[in-house]
């Protein structure tokens, strides 16, 4: 700014800058940048390493037991004959039902709170409460599920009760992440639609929601993965560990992969610990599968609407 001596074409730029009040310390700043890069790289490596170790350990224990028989057999008192079929089907049914309930309720609530309702005190209070709900331990949701769905609504210790409980549990996360996704939609899109004579609802349905969908899916994926791995609330709601039949309706009793794994892992026999590990591999596979589908959908949506 206060350079008195003008830079002539002959002076080297690096020399010229020495006279200015800027002591730009480029070497130190670049060094800092390198350190920072190293730190985040190490953090990533550490996280991957721990994850890798866990996977390796589980694979080592469980892979020898993992075969088609294990997946298609019902649980048994003998580890060699025990399988995970009823738990796998139970988990699949519950997660589909949970997904439907939680996504419909959660996305609707997010749209109402973000797009439709007035931004007033009550709205802020609701927002605060939703954020708080996200931090409540899952066991508490299990007790709620037991009181409301199993007893009061008389669903019994059923798939329906379990799915409702899990749906309520992940609802706050879905609402919060969906609202966040709606907020990232540029206001100009809404104005463009409204200026063409669209109603608020048409604007939301045709433009805002599709634009926010990829972001919403990210939150939904995380929430559903969490629900898939929960054992605690379902044990309260009444997941049984010995189910030797497949459910006929959503009001049948159930077991899930995490419950089965929890049960096996708690037994003293070494074989059961090993099949618990095999069960974990199946659970990981299921999580990967559901996430894979969601990521595929998200990728397709993102391709379709970019601005």
């Amino acid at each position, binding site marked *: *700014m*206060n*350079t008195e001596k003008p830079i002539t074409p002959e*002076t080297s*730029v*690096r020399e010229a800058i020495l006279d*200015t009040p800027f002591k*730009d310390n480029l070497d130190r*700043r*670049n060094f800092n940048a390198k350190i920072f890069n190293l730190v985040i790289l190490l953090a990533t490596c550490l996280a991957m390493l721990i994850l890798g170790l866990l996977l390796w350990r589980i694979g080592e224990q469980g892979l020898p037991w993992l075969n088609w028989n294990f997946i298609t057999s019902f649980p048994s008192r003998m580890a060699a004959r025990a399988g995970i079929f009823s738990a796998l089907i139970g988990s699949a049914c519950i997660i589909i039902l949970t997904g439907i309930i939680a996504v419909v309720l959660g996305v609707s609530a997010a749209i109402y709170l973000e797009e439709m309702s007035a931004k007033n005190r009550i709205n802020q209070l609701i927002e605060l409460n939703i954020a708080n709900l996200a931090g409540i331990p899952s066991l508490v949701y299990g007790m709620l599920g037991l009181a409301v769905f199993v007893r009061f609504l008389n669903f019994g210790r059923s798939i329906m009760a379990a799915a409702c409980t899990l749906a309520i549990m992940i609802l706050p996360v879905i609402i919060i992440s969906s609202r966040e996704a709606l907020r990232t939609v540029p206001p100009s899109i809404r104005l463009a639609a409204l200026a063409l004579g669209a109603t608020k609802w048409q604007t939301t349905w045709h433009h805002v929601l599709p634009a926010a969908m990829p972001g919403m899916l990210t939150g939904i994926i995380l929430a559903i993965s969490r629900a898939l791995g929960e054992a605690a609330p379902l044990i309260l709601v009444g997941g049984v560990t010995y189910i030797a039949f497949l459910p006929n309706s959503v009001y049948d009793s159930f077991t899930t992969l995490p419950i089965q794994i929890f049960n096996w892992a708690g037994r003293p026999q070494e074989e059961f610990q090993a099949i618990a590990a095999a069960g974990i591999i199946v659970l990981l596979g299921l999580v990967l599968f559901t996430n894979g589908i969601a990521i595929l959908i998200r990728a397709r949506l993102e391709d379709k609407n970019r601005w």
Partner: protein
Amino acid sequence: MVIAAQDLTLAYGDKNIVKKVSLEVGPRTVTALIGPSGCGKSTLLRTFNRMNDFVPSFRLVDGKIMYRDLNVYSGDVDPVFIRRRVGMVFQKPNPFPSSIYKNITWGPSINGYTGDFDQLVESSLRRAALWDEVKDKLNSSGLALSGGQQQRLCIARAIAMDPDVILMDEPCSALDPASTARIEDLIGELRERYTILIVTHNMQQAARVSEHTAFMFQGELIEHAVTKQIFNAPKHKLTEDYIMGRFG
């Protein structure tokens, strides 16, 4: 010569956007880059301070960019250093979401400015013809200003770094005529101190603010001359057609 492109070919992916362009810009002048949309003028402008580094598919195919004695794209030149000397003003005003004061001081402070910051803020804002309008609200948000004021704040932010060159990428395209006129006046004052390259769609603007004009078409530099000559007696038919508004 302050900044120059030499036989420059630039590409996004496999598509060459700028083809064999050579352009030299001398000190303390305003050079306008004109041409129809997609002719590569913005891409060329963003190469001068390596802002294209952030476009994943960008490639420098051939040729080089010189900034005084530095080869801008050579491995031993730090792009951070280049950008600190070759500032930029963007198409849409993009002030930081913080106070006017901080908008000005952040760049100099991370670059180790040792002078007086209050003075720096005042002189930068004065030079950007914004001081009188904001001197009483330096602590209010830069985003609270009008579009034209925001753009002048961005110019003030750029000149607070005491740059050597200022690149402007259609700086008035998002502004109303009154704000545009103010920015054009400002460019006229800034040329006494800085080398300015400005991309513009507006031919009258090029004629008003620049001393040299370069006309680009489909990635090639068709004509580069003194602005008066480009507008009064263009050598190429294409230049003439474009200036007369027959296409583009």
